[in-house]
């Protein structure tokens, strides 16, 4: 009985992975260059964003949240922008690298709360 149900669950699982494929690789800006296709980019916003996310696209640069890597990837994003989007904030956005620019899938931007359960401190850079 139990063996049968485990087998059934595994079958469902295989079915899923074969239909929908695995997940999306989660990468840092410094690692982005080696990745083809759709990835989930985690980084920190640096500099002033320009453009309009509702029209031709919001342009900003992302770099690694931690570590010494100085690589800053230019990102162009369309769709809804979370309230917490601002220079210095950490965010996650999906998309792919095209000609050196990370073209984000519309509406995939998620900002991380600035330490939701701690006090607000001025963002560093």
């Amino acid at each position, binding site marked *: *009985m139990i063996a049968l*149900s485990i087998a059934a*669950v595994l079958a*469902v*699982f295989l079915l*899923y992975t074969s239909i*929908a494929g*695995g*997940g*999306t*690789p*989660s*990468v840092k800006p410094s690692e982005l260059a080696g990745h083809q296709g759709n990835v*989930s980019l*985690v980084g920190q916003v640096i500099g002033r964003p320009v453009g*309009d*996310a*509702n029209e031709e696209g919001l342009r900003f640069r992302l770099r690694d949240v931690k570590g010494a890597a100085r690589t800053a990837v230019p990102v162009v994003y369309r769709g*809804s*922008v*979370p*309230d*917490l989007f*601002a220079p210095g904030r*950490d965010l*996650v956005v*999906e998309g792919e690298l095209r000609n050196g620019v990370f073209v984000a899938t519309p509406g995939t931007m*998620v*900002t*991380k*709360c*600035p*330490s*939701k*359960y*701690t*006090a*607000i*401190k*001025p*963002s560093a850079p």
Partner: protein
Amino acid sequence: MAELGRAALLVTLGLCLYACVVGSVAALTRRRRLALSARNALIAAFASTAVAAGVLAAGFLRSDFSFVYVAEHSSRSLAGLYKLSAVWGGQEGSLLLWLLILTGYAALAVWVNRNRTRDLVVWVTPVLGGIAVGFSFLLVVVATPFATQVAPADGSGLNPSLQNPYMTAHPPFLYLGYVGLAVPFAFAMGALLSGRTDERWIVATRRWTLIAWTALGIGQLLGSHWAYVEVGWGGFYAWDPVENAALMPFLAATAFLHSVMIQEKRGMLKVWNVVLVSLAFCLSIFGTFLTRSGVVNSIHSFAQSDIGAWFLAFIVIAVVFSTVMIIWRLPLLRTTTRLESLVSREAVFLYNNLLLVALCLTILWGVAWPILSEAVRGDSVVVGRPYFDFFLRIFGLPLLLLMGVGPLIAWRRASLRGLGRTFFWPAAVAVVTGVVLLLLGAGSSVPGLIAYTFSAFVLAAIGLEFVRGTRARRALSHESWPVALGSLVGRNRRRYGGYTVHVAIVLFAIGVAGASAYDSVVEGRLTKGEALTVSGYTVRYQGLTETQTDHATEVRALLRVSRNGKDLGGLEAGKNAYRIAGPDPQVSSEVGIRTNYLTGEDLFVIPGTVYEDGSVYFRIFVKPLVNLLWLAGIVFLFGSIIALWPDAREQRRLAVRYDEAGSPVRGR
């Protein structure tokens, strides 16, 4: 003051250590007076934790910024209620609240059971003491809330998005749930340690599990509602690791609440039950680990610290301990009863359990996958919404259907003819509902249509149960319908409380399907006088206002809503810019929601960008039936209270079954 808090925590650690070590010795050597002393130590640990919590709360209320923790999470201008809720606004305070709830539960559990199940309780004391040692150790050594400094002029304040009644209630409810699972776990371990593996540990902890489970459910729903009205992206659940962290123990506890009934009624599933309760407890610690360690990317990034490693150690200890105990006592957990038929109530309970655990484990897999894939392949892979949605449908929809089947099917063995008779009406209602919805165009989402058809089936089945029961009651007592219904529920609180909770789950499923499968959206930039139209609603933008309050600049777009030419009044949506420390104000969108209380539908307006020229970019959703989610919460609480309510008849029944000292009078 801080010294008093530190001392109180040190005393708590000592008392918990005493309860754990001396309690174990007492249980091993069967020394009754020593066991009583260990129990009293555990009760005293609650008192000393309460002192520590009182000191911290007083620090907040007096705005004593010589407490580093107070200075970091409060400010003079913070409103009174939020000063109190800021106590659990950070990691150290959260841990302290956790310990307070744990020792509170522990003290109450050993006290309530002092004259019952004595042979079991002597082992419950050291287990609960051991868990409390873990938390008090963290508070004393790793993350003390009582660090002091030279008091600054003012504190840095509480995050504006947390200054919300929901955020005051949401964390304590979750903790009541998480921590509450420690009680059934401790009793299960107590049963294994003492070798008394009959169903008494289940009888003794039924209400504890139910309280913890209810709190966990309500806590999550409060969080969802907060996300819906406050965060304002138009959803209420994002499959974020931290949200999943609370969902997993809830699912495991749901499975446990069902499977214990099989052990009580038929003496089966003994091993399964101890496994489930251990799983639920370990998952609640895992949840804390996830939220506190920052090993996975979450939109809730809490203060990150090395405390994650301690929790990892805690999980390893809990998993190893419970596994060893279960394997050691396997011979005692053998059951003589076997499953007689695959079509019986026991079997349906078993299917329900397998589906719930499968859902729980696939979520666990999804949460752990980024960590595992990074460890194995050196490349972190995240699974997103499609993964979780897929498994929610695959396992959730059959679960929904089983909720209608379970209550109607006979114990032991159900005959096919009996099944036909029992299920004729619910099935008929379901088919008619399905066809009508299909004609109305609900076929646009197949999972949605299936969900609604199953929901109709379950509601009809539960309705039928209430009608049948009330009719039988009337035939016996000749009472009026409402009185008969009342006494029916009053005499079978667990059963009808359970059905009421099922109704809540169905309402929830309808709400989720309505909001996610049948919603509509339109977006665009409007200048003054222009309008957007969606699902029959016309939303006209009439202009901007700006007001200055003490803490923020509030910009509001004034909207006029009409539906099919009929004016429905005004609606506001805008942004608040909170003045905080730092170069930029913190902006928070204030969504405009217009609820139709008759149909449960929401018109949901998100103000995107406010442009210099006064035009605004709007994103407008229409979410049918979404308010059933919140209604479900109320029904859920109501049903749980029915099932929890003390029952004198049940107590007498139990008293007959077990003698004073708590030994079973008759073996089963």
